[in-house]
């Protein structure tokens, strides 16, 4: 075992954390509101949207992420290029930074997962809460913003945490998009001297630290948010 390499590469891998987190955060920013809205369309069984959401969720949940990455990465530029071509749009599809593909893939993926998370969380908030909100004169939007969403969030938080941790881990597949994230950096460093054993240990450590930290932060936040549930029980 090459300990010097082990230590050096640990920091190389660590330098990929911002990329991983960036993707994670963008994906969450897209997926949280979108997932919530689509969860509502599913709960309220809005005819066409519900069906579409259902198919979308089933595809994303049913196929490995690496395959989704591949399909998006290879087909989107082809599709765009042919569309641009047809309408004479002057734009180079290929100048796009591959991180955009990561945003797309991971946002779509996380949205699908959060739809299900929110769907079950919303159904735990009793209908009476919404009715009470109406009865004191709140509008639909106000009722959701002030009463339903905060309560849903608390229930959903543990599952959102799981989804986030899985998302962070899944960004390791970003190597397939040439993203400078944790796994790719460690592996590139390993290539010169074929130090793969050390590289994998480093990758393991970085994810372990990163994910447990995220988990810990979620727990803290959960405690704060659920103040109104925890006390007195």
């Amino acid at each position, binding site marked *: 075992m090459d300990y010097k390499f082990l230590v050096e590469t640990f920091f190389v891998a660590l330098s990929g954390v911002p990329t991983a987190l960036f993707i994670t955060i963008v994906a969450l920013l897209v997926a949280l509101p979108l997932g919530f809205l689509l969860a509502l369309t599913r709960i309220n069984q809005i005819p066409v949207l519900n069906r579409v959401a259902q198919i979308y969720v089933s595809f994303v949940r049913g196929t490995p992420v690496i395959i989704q990455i591949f399909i998006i990465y290879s087909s989107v530029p082809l599709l765009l290029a042919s569309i641009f071509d047809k309408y004479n749009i002057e734009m180079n599809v290929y100048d796009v930074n591959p991180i955009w593909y990561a945003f797309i893939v991971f946002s779509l993926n996380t949205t699908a997962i959060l739809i299900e998370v929110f769907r079950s969380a919303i159904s735990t908030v*009793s209908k*009476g*809460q919404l*009715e*009470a*909100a*109406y*009865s*004191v*004169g*709140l*509008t639909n939007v*106000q009722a959701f913003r*002030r*009463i339903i969403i*905060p*309560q849903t969030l*608390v229930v959903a938080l543990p599952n959102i945490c799981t989804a986030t941790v899985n998302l962070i881990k899944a960004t390791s597949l970003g190597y397939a998009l040439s993203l400078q994230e944790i796994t790719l950096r460690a592996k590139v460093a390993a290539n010169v001297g074929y130090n793969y054993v050390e590289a994998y240990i480093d990758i393991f450590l970085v994810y372990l630290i990163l994910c447990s930290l995220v988990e810990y932060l979620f727990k803290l936040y959960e405690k704060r948010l659920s*103040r*109104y*549930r925890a*006390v*007195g*029980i």
Partner: protein
Amino acid sequence: MLEITNIHKSFGENEILKGVDLKIEKGDVVVILGPSGSGKTTLLRCINFLEKADQGHAIFGDIDVNLKTASKKAIHGIRQKIAFVFQNYNLFNNKTALENVTEGLVIGRKIAKAEANEIGKKALDKVGLSEKYNAYPIELSGGQQQRVGIARAVALNPDIILFDEPTSALDPELVGEVLTVMKQIAKEGTTMLVVTHEMSFAKDVANRVIFMDAGVVVEEGSPKDIFVKPKEERTRKFLKRVLPEDYIFYI
């Protein structure tokens, strides 16, 4: 003040309300009695648009709407004038007692926060919860929760408050405290429409009692009329079941 005519409401095949009329004057305290499933809750919910009636008409002060086709704006307008006290309290779990009371004022009515707090505290004081402004619902007993529910309704200063069995989810010992509060606000002249099984409340406080069964109003009149000399057989049978065998009225 509130006049409802010919409400019909079905759930699927079941017709639950079969043309109910109801007229309430300012200052009235009306109690609705009736067996389980007779449509009492449904009636209140239709009035507050928590259910959409299939047919029916409401005149409320200067607002005059069809219960089926009412616009969002009309619904919102009527809801501003009506408050609702739920059987299961339905306090906002994520808000303190005071926030529960002020939520409708600040967000719904756009009253300044400071002023809303003022109003809210007064309402909570009125129901005897001066010590509990900052308690979350989970920290309160059932009776206290229901009193917050009442304060929440009162604070809105509505034209009328609807109560749907406000004490039936409470432990027997806690019923008293809630009834006391209700009697007090009734005495202050608040217009109230109350579904309840508490006969003592009906007897002492109501100026009109309505007996419903199977989606229609069977009989209505003063408490004395209903309890002492009910005209209908159905009313008699119901009262016999509900009242303690040896309950004696000396009205």
